[in-house]
């Protein structure tokens, strides 16, 4: 009798506790108000800052109770320092910046990314003069236009001529750890041109050791002016600065990064780890606003793009002419003047899970840092994964995405299957030199390149 009573009592208690736990769980899932409401976000004048501009102009930040000031920065260094010293709360960053900051290449700081901003969106442009010299080396199609993708093999004879006559062949990229640096290097090396090594352990961070082509840093918006001045013969930069060269009649874009590596990860949204810890709700809410903006940009097959271009053309965002920005943002890309080709995925903001911070993307950047000597020593595969886990934070992304799904703002089908997602994309095959990349085996990947440091090699 007593036993049975006791049993019933225990049953009830368990049931009650269970109920309590369920309610607590539900409460915990409801996202709290932001701890910090007034935020200052930095960006560089490039079209791929669009998610930030859209989240502001479409009121997605305000929907989260965030009052955001958006501010253009002079160059990537100023932007990074701004985030590190707290002048900026977050920023549109080169994917390499949070990674380099974490491993201490350049300024050491704990920067993380809960949100990947876009895929593709860069191009390599050469001056009219170099283009004229490259043109005879290019295979042509029936209509007389060059076959794409254009490989750096066509540039090699031109560079060789420069070297023979003792003149330097200079090209611009936007930052030592920028996507553009690695893409330009990848393209050059795939065509047999050596872009030079870094040797930070010897104090040489010029990246010009053994170089056939001398790469140097120029801020994106100044690229066309620097090319026009003849200081550089070509550059790799994001839009609209390649299309600007076409409009200004000063250069010809030869290849887009979509052709170098189909759907390569581009910018990320960077914040400090301290910020994410101190303001967890603000972090998730920022991520939510950015996810919604990215989706808006790609919705209905880019239907919103013309409106987005109009916003980006405002002087406080990118500020270039509407038609210059529209050229690439609306799915086309103009190479040589008049040679306009369709590249529907030139700017991808949301499709193909573009906003999810994949570990394998971070590891690709690390492999390129190792390939060109920015990471001077050998590292085991596990090290690559550890760094990627420190910097890329799909856990924060997941929180934001799941709350959006719970509020029925977005559908679960918009996102990767979070329960089964490992953070590694399957083997990626679409590189210009047909080398296959698998983020799980970075050292094997490095051994596949003919130009660049392999496992065990140092400068």
């Amino acid at each position, binding site marked *: 009798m007593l036993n049975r009573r006791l049993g019933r009592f225990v049953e009830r208690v368990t049931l009650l506790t269970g109920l309590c736990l369920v309610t607590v769980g539900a409460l915990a899932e409801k996202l709290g108000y932001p701890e910090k409401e007034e935020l200052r976000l930095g960006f560089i004048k490039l079209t791929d800052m669009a998610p930030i501009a859209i989240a502001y102009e479409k009121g997605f930040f305000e929907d989260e*109770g965030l009052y955001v000031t958006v501010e253009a920065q002079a160059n990537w260094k100023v932007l990074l320092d701004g985030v590190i010293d707290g002048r900026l709360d977050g920023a549109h960053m080169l994917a390499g910046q949070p990674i380099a900051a974490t491993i201490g290449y350049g300024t050491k700081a704990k920067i993380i990314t809960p949100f990947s901003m876009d895929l593709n969106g860069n191009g390599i442009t050469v001056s009219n003069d170099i283009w004229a010299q490259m043109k005879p080396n290019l295979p042509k199609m029936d209509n007389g236009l060059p076959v794409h993708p254009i490989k750096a093999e066509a540039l090699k004879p031109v560079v060789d001529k420069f070297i023979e006559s003792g003149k330097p062949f200079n090209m611009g990229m936007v930052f030592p750890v920028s996507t553009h640096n690695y893409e330009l290097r990848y393209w050059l090396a795939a065509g047999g041109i050596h872009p030079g090594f870094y040797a930070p352990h010897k104090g040489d961070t010029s990246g010009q050791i053994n170089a056939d082509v001398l790469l140097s840093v120029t801020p994106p*918006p100044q690229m066309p002016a620097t090319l026009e001045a003849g200081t550089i013969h070509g550059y790799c930069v994001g839009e609209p600065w390649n299309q600007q060269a076409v409009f200004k009649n000063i250069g010809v874009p030869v290849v887009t990064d979509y052709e170098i590596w189909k759907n390569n990860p581009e910018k990320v949204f960077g914040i400090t780890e301290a910020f994410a810890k101190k303001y967890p709700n603000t972090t998730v809410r920022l991520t939510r606003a950015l996810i919604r903006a990215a989706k808006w940009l790609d919705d209905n097959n880019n239907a919103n793009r013309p409106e987005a271009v109009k916003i980006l053309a405002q002087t406080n965002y990118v500020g270039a002419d509407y038609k210059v920005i529209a050229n690439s943002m609306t799915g086309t890309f103009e190479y040589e003047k008049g040679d306009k080709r369709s590249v529907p995925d030139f700017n991808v903001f949301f499709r193909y899970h573009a906003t999810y911070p994949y570990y394998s993307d971070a590891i690709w950047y690390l492999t390129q840092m190792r390939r060109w000597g920015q990471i001077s020593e050998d590292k085991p595969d596990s090290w690559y994964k550890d760094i990627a886990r420190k910097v890329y934070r799909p856990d924060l992304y997941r929180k934001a995405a799941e709350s959006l799904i719970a509020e029925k703002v977005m559908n679960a089908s918009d996102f990767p299957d979070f329960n089964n997602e490992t953070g590694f994309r399957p083997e990626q095959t679409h590189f210009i030199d047909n080398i296959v990349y698998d983020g799980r085996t970075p050292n094997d990947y490095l051994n596949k390149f003919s130009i660049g440091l392999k496992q065990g090699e140092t400068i």
Partner: protein
Amino acid sequence: MMSTVKRQLAFARVDSFSTQNIVRGVQSVFKGMLLPSLGIVAFLILWSFAASSINTSLGKFPGPQAVFEQVQNLYREHRVEREKEAAFYQRQEARNEKRLAEDPRYQPKIRAYTGKETFWDQIVTSLLTVMSGFLLAVLLAIPLGIAIGLSKKLNTAINPIIQIFKPVSPLAWLPLVTIVVSAVYVTPDPMFAKSFINSLVTVTLCCIWPMVINTSVGVASLNKDWVNVSKVLRLPALQHVKKIVLPASIPAIFTGMRMSLGIAWMVLIAAEMLAQNPGLGKFVWDEFQNGSSQSLSRIMTAVLVIGLIGFILDRSMLQLQRLLSWDKTVELR
């Protein structure tokens, strides 16, 4: 006695209507108005001609017409931004009320508008910065200048330092100022933005030297008779400075101030460009970076506005100088 005064007045009245005076009046109007207008018209014509023959990668160089259009454009943008600002505050109030209903403990707060700064806002920012930096420099430089002017020993001690720092472009200081300000000026809720402090300190640094030098020279070249008067009257030191030194050296002090303000305005624009601090300099730099077909005419507009403001600043100092200067025989221009 009265009659003489009346006669003189009458004579003066007649004299002012004399043909000779009319001619002189016309001449002065001609000199004062017509010649400058002629100069401006000639400049406008030359400018349009030159502009239409310069082709840049951003299109033709902007002529007067393009600048005029841009002025209207910038004004329109300013109006639009103000409307957006009003809407922003409205939305914010609605949001605050909604949150207050959900969460009664919430203390609503009105946050400042987060939109972009218009051309007009940038002008105001630059003016505020230059005036604050200038005033700070006045507060530092004039007492220092007086002290140096009064004491030969102090002058000999400090002069080398002043001579070394005077020719340094304040822009060279800028990186140091930026780093030091961000290290030293740390408060959780700062009253002034760091960028404002940076520009302000840079302006102060460049204003200080001409003012110190001019003040000290003015003080040192004080009329010996007046110094003797002060000695005879046994004026205490502070009274001596107040009654004799300051009034006597006002022309010199103001010459220094005018020089500094001119330099300060030029330096501020450059500093804003370099450090991306809000203001007209940032406006110019942003437009240069934008590289749109409108950019050149917007920059040209800014150039003219910068010139105009510089001119107005200089004239205001001149008026102040005329007002305060005791020696009306010296021609000031």
